[in-house]
């Protein structure tokens, strides 16, 4: 009689390999928490940084292998995650951003007792994002979102000595929580309307004109837009980016954007194909709002981190243009654009970190004066990143903007090109203001207080910036292989 009492739970087959990039970062994170306790204080920083770096590099390699071995998109683990190239390419980017962020973090003056926890959280955030981009139903979507968001909230506030860091973390937490709640409520409405959680099944349910579904869709878009920091859901961005430690800002500006944009695009085209005429307009509207708000607000900023925070809002707008286009070219454009964009963001914040460590105060346009001549490598790199943001040739930013415009035109929306062009014209003023600040004015003229002595040697930071520089410039010349990768990734989406 006893055997009939045994309840058989149908455990799904677990495709461990599909989860491997996420697991690699998660394992690194767990290991680093042990490092925080067991490794003596002297060696802790080195051990932690190397552990996190190893985790990100392992995730990078695994994601590349995963991309190579998943030519045909499938779902795995009871249809809760996707195993396809769209997710894998995004994971490659996220892991790459994480690895560079580790390099940028090395020279930061962390409080020693928190250094291993910092790297553990960084790896955890990366793992969460890698999981998030694979999400194939609303449940895993929300799980992934919370996973990386909570890590980021803590990361923002981790350096409690830093003025504004705690404030940044708190603001991000509160506004981020509103975003998450909106997304969750929207998911509930979508589920209520269709009775389905899986993206494919929501799309197949065909409840296109159900007002419950449309309201849910609107709330889901709003929830994701919080993470993308697209206007008008960007209110947390300037404060969080300015207050957070600079390497954290670099990671947020690059990897978070990748995760949020890649997931938004997949969710919209797989789950809501029937409402395309609605959400393309909504996304285009958000894109225009972001372009306007980001660019105009950036014009008046003096603090360079804040300026770049607004620039990231405007770039969210740019990268929403291919999403609004909702075609195969748009998928390619988005993935391609993210590559130089991540490199430029990480690199620009890396250069800011270098100046910050030199001066010991927040970097403003005024105290950048003469920086380009004093530190030629960082100066030239910053120049290239600014030109890249502006979409100048010799940087991948140019090709990215070109593809985004091409996608908009294919959709038949030439006015979206005009909006993008107008935004770029305005942005020239503040991106070039950074170059102007670095090169055109003498440091002596402004009588800055000398920081004392030669600048601190920081080889990992220089290496990180060099990688970003190579990717920014390289993506201009090697367009074809990157576009091929983006093309095969985008073919995982239903077009």
């Amino acid at each position, binding site marked *: 009689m006893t055997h009939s009492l045994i309840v058989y739970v149908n455990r799904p087959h677990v495709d461990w390999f599909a989860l491997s990039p996420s697991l690699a970062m998660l394992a690194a994170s767990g290991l680093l928490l042990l490092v925080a306790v067991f490794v003596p204080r002297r060696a802790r920083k080195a051990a932690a940084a190397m552990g996190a770096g190893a985790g990100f590099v392992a995730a990078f390699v695994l994601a590349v292998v995963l991309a190579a071995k998943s030519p045909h998109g499938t779902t795995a683990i009871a249809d809760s995650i996707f195993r396809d190239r769209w997710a894998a390419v995004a994971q490659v980017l996220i892991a790459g951003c994480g690895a560079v962020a580790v390099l940028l973090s090395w020279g930061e003056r962390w409080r020693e007792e928190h250094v291993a926890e910092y790297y553990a959280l960084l790896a955890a955030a990366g793992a969460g994002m890698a999981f998030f981009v694979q999400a194939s139903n609303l449940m895993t979507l929300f799980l992934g979102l919370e996973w990386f968001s909570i890590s980021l909230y803590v990361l923002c506030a981790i350096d409690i000595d830093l003025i504004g860091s705690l404030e940044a973390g708190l603001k991000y937490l509160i506004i981020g929580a509103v975003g998450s709640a909106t997304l969750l409520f929207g998911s509930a409405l979508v589920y209520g309307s269709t009775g389905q959680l899986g993206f494919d099944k929501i799309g197949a349910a065909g409840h296109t004109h159900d007002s419950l579904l449309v309201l849910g869709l609107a709330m889901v878009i709003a929830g994701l837009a919080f993470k993308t920091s697209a206007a008008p859901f960007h209110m947390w961005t300037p404060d969080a980016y300015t207050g957070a430690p600079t390497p954290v800002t670099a990671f947020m500006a690059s990897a978070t954007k990748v995760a949020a944009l890649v997931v938004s695009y997949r969710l919209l085209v797989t789950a809501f194909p029937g409402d395309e005429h609605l959400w393309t307009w909504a996304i285009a509207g958000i894109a225009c709002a972001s372009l306007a708000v980001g660019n105009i607000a950036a014009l008046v900023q003096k603090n360079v981190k804040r300026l770049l925070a607004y620039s990231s809002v405007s770039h969210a707008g740019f990268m929403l243009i291919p999403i609004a286009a909702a075609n195969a070219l748009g998928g390619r454009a988005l993935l391609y654009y993210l590559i130089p964009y991540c490199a430029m963001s990480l690199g620009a914040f890396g250069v800011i970190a270098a100046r910050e460590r030199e001066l010991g105060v927040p970097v403003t346009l005024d105290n950048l004066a003469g920086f380009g001549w004093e530190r030629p490598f960082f100066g030239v790199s910053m120049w290239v990143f600014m030109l890249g943001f502006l979409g100048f040739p010799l940087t991948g930013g*140019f090709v990215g903007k*070109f*593809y985004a*415009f091409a996608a908009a035109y294919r959709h038949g929306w030439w006015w979206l090109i*005009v909006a993008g062009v107008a935004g770029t014209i305005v942005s*020239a003023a503040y991106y070039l203001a950074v*170059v102007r600040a670095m090169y*055109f004015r003498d440091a002596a003229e402004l009588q800055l207080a000398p920081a004392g002595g030669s600048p601190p040697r920081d080889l990992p930071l220089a290496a990180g910036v060099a990688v970003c520089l190579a990717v920014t410039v390289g993506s201009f010349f090697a367009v*074809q292989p990157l576009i091929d990768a983006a*093309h095969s990734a985008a073919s995982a989406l239903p077009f």
Partner: protein
Amino acid sequence: MTSWLTTILIFLPVAGALLVWLVPMPAKSVGSIAALVSLVEIAVWIAAVEHFDFGSGELQLAQQRPWFRDLGVSYHVGQFGYSLWLVGLTVVCGAAACLYAWWVGRERPRAYFGLLLFLTGAVVGVFVAQDLLLFYAFFEAMLIPLYVLIGVWGGAARMRATITFVVYTVAGSLLMLAAIVVYGLQQGTFDLTRMGTSSNDWLFLGFAIAFAVKAPLWPFHGWLPDAYRESPAEVSALLSGVISKVAAYGFLRIAIRQFPGPTHDFRVPILVLASIGLVYGSLLAFRAPDVRGVVAYSSLAQMGLITYGLFAANSLGSDGAVLQMVNHGLISTTLFLLAGMVERRAATGELKLLGGMARGRPALATLLMTTGVIALAVPLSSNFAGEFLILAGVFQQGWAWAVIGAVAIVLAAMYMLRLISAVLHERPGPAVTEAALDLRGAELAIVVPLVGLLLALSAWPAAISGHVAGILP
């Protein structure tokens, strides 16, 4: 090998720039290396001329490699007869600028000479690009060195100069980018040699405004006076001598060739703008208080005249326009360099502080006089030949245009003679001291070849006007 010549012409200066930037070297030798690279560049161009068949109107010395296939973009370079001459103008003026900067000795030489060489490479790239996106990439790449050259090494009001310059040109060129995206996707390729013509007025305007800003044509010339005045002399020389020709070339290669319908529709408005620029620029040049102001505004006037030739829509006009582009490029490069030399001696370019410089300075007097006389288009000068062809060409569009052009030529004589007499003759000005020497050997070595080229063109203008087959389809 010959197919590589065009690519070498683009990338030799760029390689020189990278060499100067990256390889550690003593600051003294930087200028000589840059000058050497720019002279080798001229030699490469001469080799290109040797391999060029002027009888055919086809694209020559061409090379093509795919860049990104899904949208039909490729690295496609090659030269037509007229592009070859404009490339020649670029490499000659680029070399003159490098040599002059070497002689003057600029601060932070590695950055400076690297940027000058990079600029030369980018301008050559614009003239030879046969893919629309590649053209745009080079067109924008020019702005990067110019921005810094003016902003770092410019005069006191350089900040304002760079800001207005960048705002104007970025606004113009981004409109062009939008037009390029739409036009290229409509055609399914960005290869200029395979693209069909279009009759879309908006696209035409997108291109035309970008070129009108770059040229500049009235009323898009707001950036001109500050930029020409505040730049280092050799950068002003390149701006007015070479960069403005990029715009004229753009009109010729893209706006007119690819958009025949809109060109026809907009001919009269553009000719009106050109006329206004011609007369207005000449009048401003006549009233300008300093040497560079005169040359700058005369450049505005000359671009109006070249636009006449371009939009005359016949081979007389377009041949004359190409000849005049080269003429004006050489003249304004020479004049800006001479202006720089005068400014170095008198520490000012104000005309009322100058004067009497001819006395005891025969070389300066002779060179300024010769260039000025060619610039005011006396008969038998190359400028006369160019302007005559242009006016003959535009006469076929209506006699009134030719009358305005002729009036402007009289005005040109007025401002040029005023410049010559204010600098060379009259009473010695307060800024002109006895200690101010005549041109030195090195300066002569830079300016004499330029003036020599002008005299050679005066003797044989058909060298250019007769060797530009294939301008009009």
